[in-house]
């Protein structure tokens, strides 16, 4: 991307954005990651370092994205926070306490929809409530409210195989939120959706987040998505996954799709691209141009 436009620095924040970020940082730290390193054993006996010395503090009701190329350890990171994987070194604190294993205080939305296929939409949302000890009637009325919130009231009795991908992901969000966890983890939740549905889902998510007291850790490899949704973006480098920079997004709230073309947006995007592909142009030249011959018909 060559700079045709004169872009402001991504560090330049309007007064309201700066004030908002200051307010956020004044809030208590909800989720804290300290010196997190994860190494996997490879089949041949060696080790791969998937994540290296990650430090991060996420404040209450912050929308934090983790961005990085495929394979740089985003899923590993979010799985450790969820308690589904144990760190090799370091620790994860939730509300000041070290986490031990998965639990209902960290709702999770997976890339695959992972709805229980044998349960209806309503029963899926009730699952967590009942697992945490709600009475069936209480769970049912709660679940219906959450289903209503994600706009699926008409489908409360449908089964997952009768829903579209976008609808399934909304059920997954309602299910994760129903336990009212302080933190919601989302691992590339919209990776499998078409661009249009994805756009709708992003707006939905922002609306929900404005109405629910929840801190979101959102994993994605899509720059636009990360910038559009987040307060801050953690940019990871590949091999090993290390923090390159934590970018503060200089966009005002409430977010709207028009902001995709604003100078702040483009400046942020340019900065992140520089981070992820430092030698982009140099490597472009080295593309192996295999033997190609001009077609030479009368079209060209």
């Amino acid at each position: 991307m060559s700079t045709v436009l004169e872009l402001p620095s991504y560090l330049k924040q309007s007064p309201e954005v700066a004030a908002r970020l200051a307010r956020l940082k004044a809030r208590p730290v909800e989720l804290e990651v300290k010196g997190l390193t994860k190494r996997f054993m490879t089949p041949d006996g060696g080790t791969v370092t998937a994540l290296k010395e990650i430090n991060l503090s996420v404040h209450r009701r912050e929308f934090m994205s983790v961005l990085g190329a495929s394979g740089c350890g985003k899923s590993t990171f979010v799985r450790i926070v969820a308690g589904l994987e144990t760190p090799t070194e370091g620790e994860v604190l939730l509300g000041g306490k070290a986490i031990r294993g998965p639990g209902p205080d960290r709702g999770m939305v997976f890339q695959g929809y992972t709805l229980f296929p044998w349960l209806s939409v309503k029963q899926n949302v009730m699952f967590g409530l009942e697992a945490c000890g709600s009475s069936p009637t209480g769970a049912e009325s709660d679940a219906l409210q959450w289903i209503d919130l994600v706009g699926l009231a008409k489908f409360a009795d449908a089964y997952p195989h009768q829903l579209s991908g976008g609808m399934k992901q909304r059920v997954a969000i309602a299910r994760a939120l129903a336990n009212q966890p302080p933190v919601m983890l989302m691992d590339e939740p919209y990776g499998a959706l078409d661009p249009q549905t994805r756009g709708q889902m992003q707006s939905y998510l922002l609306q929900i987040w404005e109405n629910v007291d929840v801190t979101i850790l959102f994993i994605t490899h899509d720059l636009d998505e990360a910038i559009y949704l987040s307060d801050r973006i953690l940019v990871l480098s590949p091999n090993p996954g290390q923090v390159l920079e934590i970018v503060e997004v200089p966009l005002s709230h409430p977010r709207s799709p028009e902001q995709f073309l604003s100078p702040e947006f483009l400046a942020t995007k340019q900065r992140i691209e520089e981070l992820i592909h430092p030698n982009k142009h140099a490597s472009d030249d080295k593309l192996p141009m295999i033997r190609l011959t001009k077609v030479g018909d009368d079209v060209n």
Partner: protein
Amino acid sequence: MRSPKESWFAISRQLSPGRAAVLTAWSFLLPLSIWCVVSYVPFIWHPDVKLEVGSTGATVYTAGDHVGKDYFPTLLAGARDENAGIAEAAAAGEPIKGSSRDNVKLLRMVLPIAISNGVLTPADDTNDAAIYGVWRRLATGDLVMSSPALSEENLSVIRDNWAIMSAISETYDKSALEKQKLLSLIPQGKPANPVYLPAPHEVLIQGYKSWTEEPAEGRSSMGERLRSSIIVVFGGFLLAALVSLPLGIVAGSYDFFSKLTEPFLDFFRYMPAPSFATLLVAIFGAHQSPKLALVFIGTLPHLCLMITKTTRMLDPSLLEAAQTLGSKRFHLLRKVVVPGIVPAVYNDLRIALGWAWTWLVIAELIGVKSGLTEVIDTQGTRRNFDQVFPVIFLIGIIGFATDQFLAWLRPKLFRWTEPKAPGLMGRWFGGVQNWFEPVLVAYRKG
């Protein structure tokens, strides 16, 4: 519906339901028609001759016996030679003296043919006076046999013999029979397949008879046998399922139980279940219990391992999702593992039920033979294969029908699995759905 122009041979494409039904019907009609052709077209195979009239003399055959096609002429020649000798001696004026025992045997040779023509009954087997009467009526032309008919050659033997016998006595008199050796009947018969391949109609008739005729004193009826076999199959199977389900589910969920059970089960399944037969009889006695036990130990290890594997194949992300929702230990097993694997385990159980039917035949032979297998065993030993086949088919039909029924029931029980177009059998079962619709409705509510 696809257009009728679609090829019948489009690779890895489903045929339309109509075409599928036609082919399903053919998959049964083809073997059946091969059987019919081999049975009813005389020159196709028929390596034997099935005797309608047996032979006395050096080698004794009774009517109904099979002899090889190649050997039959030798048998004929033997009988004809013997008769020629007797006739020659009589013509020379020195008839060979007979023995009443041999002559009575000879007279009784018409008995089978008389029975199948409805002239005498099996109870007449020693009623020599009546048999003597049949000879008279045959010789005088009073009586003509038709199913089967007697050959011209045999009729002339009967007339010649009757000339000799009637000269002595018009009515049966055993002592008079020793005056002169009678001519022997000439073996006659029809081309036939070996006894082990009875024709379809014979199997049908015997099958029908075995269900309608009263069983002999002290023997079980077919209905009782079927019930006893079903108890062995389903009893053994249900016991195995009852043990395998919890064991397989915990072994599939927890590596601890997997390592604790699987190696031994893997070893155990290589010890053939029938090798425990005598042991089981020693432990459980000779009646139903050891048979149930054999089906049980034959089915258990495989079923257990299969359910373990099925459980392990449950999508791990479902378990992870459940854990992030606060589900733990027993709740996780009961609310995620069990419902998640139930449709696949249902299929495992269907397969295991098939094994149970296989073990049945061995199980019923141990201790006191019983059930359907006893018929196969005793009638098979007596080479009455027309009575063996109906039982074999019955087992096949019951097993197949149960399995098809369970296959058809599956989508009704597990509505969340994607529906599949029902096959021919499935559609047939759809017709009988009405009478247990209430049960299904209750199940769905519950």
